[in-house]
């Protein structure tokens, strides 16, 4: 089990390899479909994303009526492949060092990881409670006009469990499992 602690750096990221199980502590920014679309359309992000990690997640967040404090009630990853057209641009333009999601991403993102120094972390899909427990606070929220699940939530996490499935050296567990299972299937048809 490896650890990745805030502040994150390109050097730390390049040390990670496919198959590494990692516990992340520090800051994450959620961003999913609408955020990536808006960035792609040319709007500047409302937060500094350099050396930050984007989490593909649409959490269930409740706001305390009196204190106005936000609390994350459930926060697992959403399917990442929908951001495949945009993710590499966010790496290039804003210097993120990590993406957390599920299901893996394609060749554009893999190339982006290699070129700009970024990794893809796979969180366990559906594990919304285990992952929400690792969120210690909600520090800010941006672009709430996109709706709660689509907004950018700034989260502080402790020992957030992920597996590296795409690294900064061209390695992808997803392309390997896809190729192997395709070959295996041929034997059963």
């Amino acid at each position, binding site marked *: 089990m490896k650890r990745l602690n805030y502040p994150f750096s390109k050097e730390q990221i390049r040390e990670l390899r496919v*198959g590494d*199980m990692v516990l992340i502590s520090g800051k994450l920014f959620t961003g999913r479909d*609408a955020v990536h679309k808006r960035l792609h359309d040319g709007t500047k992000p409302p937060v500094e994303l350099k050396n930050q990690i984007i989490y593909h*997640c*649409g*959490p*269930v967040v*409740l706001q305390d009526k009196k204190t106005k404090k936000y609390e994350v*009630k*459930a*926060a*697992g990853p*959403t*399917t990442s*492949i929908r951001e495949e057209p945009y993710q590499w641009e966010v790496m290039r333009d804003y210097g993120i060092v990590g993406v957390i999601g*599920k*299901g*893996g991403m394609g060749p554009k993102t893999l190339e982006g990881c290699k070129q700009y120094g970024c990794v893809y972390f*796979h969180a*366990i*899909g*559906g*594990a*919304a*409670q*285990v992952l*929400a*427990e690792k969120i210690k606070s909600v520090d800010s929220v941006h672009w709430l006009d*996109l*709706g*709660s*699940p*689509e907004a950018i939530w700034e989260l502080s996490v402790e020992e957030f*469990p992920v*597996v590296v*499935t795409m690294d900064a050296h061209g390695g992808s*567990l*997803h392309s*390997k*499992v*896809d190729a*192997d*299972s*395709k070959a*295996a*299937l041929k034997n*059963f*048809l």
Partner: protein
Amino acid sequence: MGVRQRPAKKLNKKTTKKVAKKATKKIAKKAAKKTTKKTDKNKALKKAIKKTAKKVVALPGLGHEVHLFNSIVELIRITSAEIPNDIQKVILEALAAEEKNTTAEYAMNIIKANIELAKKKSQPICQDTGTVLFYISHPANFDQIKFTKIVHKAILASTKKGYLRQNSVDSLTGENPGTNLGPGHPDLHFHQHTKNTVEIKLMLKGGGCENVGAQYSLPNNELGAGRDLDGVRKVILDAVQKAQGKGCGPGVLGITIGGDRGAGYVYSKEQLLRKLDDKNSNKVLADLEKDIVETSNKLGIGPMGFGGKTTLLGCKIGALNRLPASFFVSISYMCWAYRRQGIQLKADNSIQKWLY
């Protein structure tokens, strides 16, 4: 699932019995008066019984509406937070089957911990609380309009409590009013049955697994799949391979062979209402279900697509007639976070029993 709530059983029974008795007497008297001219006493009695039955299931008083509201909110809470026993059993078996110290075992362990934590905290197993699909089986003279209104209220309340995420978006404007209500949401399927009880089944089906569903039209040249069972098998396995880990595997398939495009998908989701350990009464389909699970688990896709032993937890297949010109195979994928539950209502709309 154990005892979830302890309603004042005795009191309820007593009062409903009394009310029912009174009602029967009254109605019987009226009916008897009306039919005094007729000599057929049996007919009057039949009518009286029918009328009483009508009263019991037609959501009569306001109190009963409150019961119905409470029952549906409770159904939503449990469905969102607790995995049914038949699914949990298979998940634990899958965990035991994975090789130790692999990412696959790690994933299954987190899944197990998540199931326990969600139940303990009574919070959503998965943040994507999905399309809200209701399947209601009811007797004749059931007020679907009134029922639908109460379901809408229950969904609003459940969203405020965080049992459901604000999950319904206007497809044209992109707006999310945060109510989970709108065209197509929730999705209600009413079926009349011959029993005198109301049964409500609920499925919360997340977007990740819905997105890896697929519909094939046979023949399929690319896959060499003809218009026969072997062709059906080929396209199903293709869908499993293409889904990889995207649908939060290990998952379960609900499949329809035949039907038109619409009915095919609707019926494939209804297959997911079957218990995982049931056996298809059609032997051909039972064999195909078994074959699909066994073969899929030899592909090495594994939990989350990390590679590993369990790719599918189950497969349920139904068949509908088709037109000579059409041969569809419709596949719905359900993630491991298999949220479905059901309740049978008492005459006063409180919960009689849980169905899974």
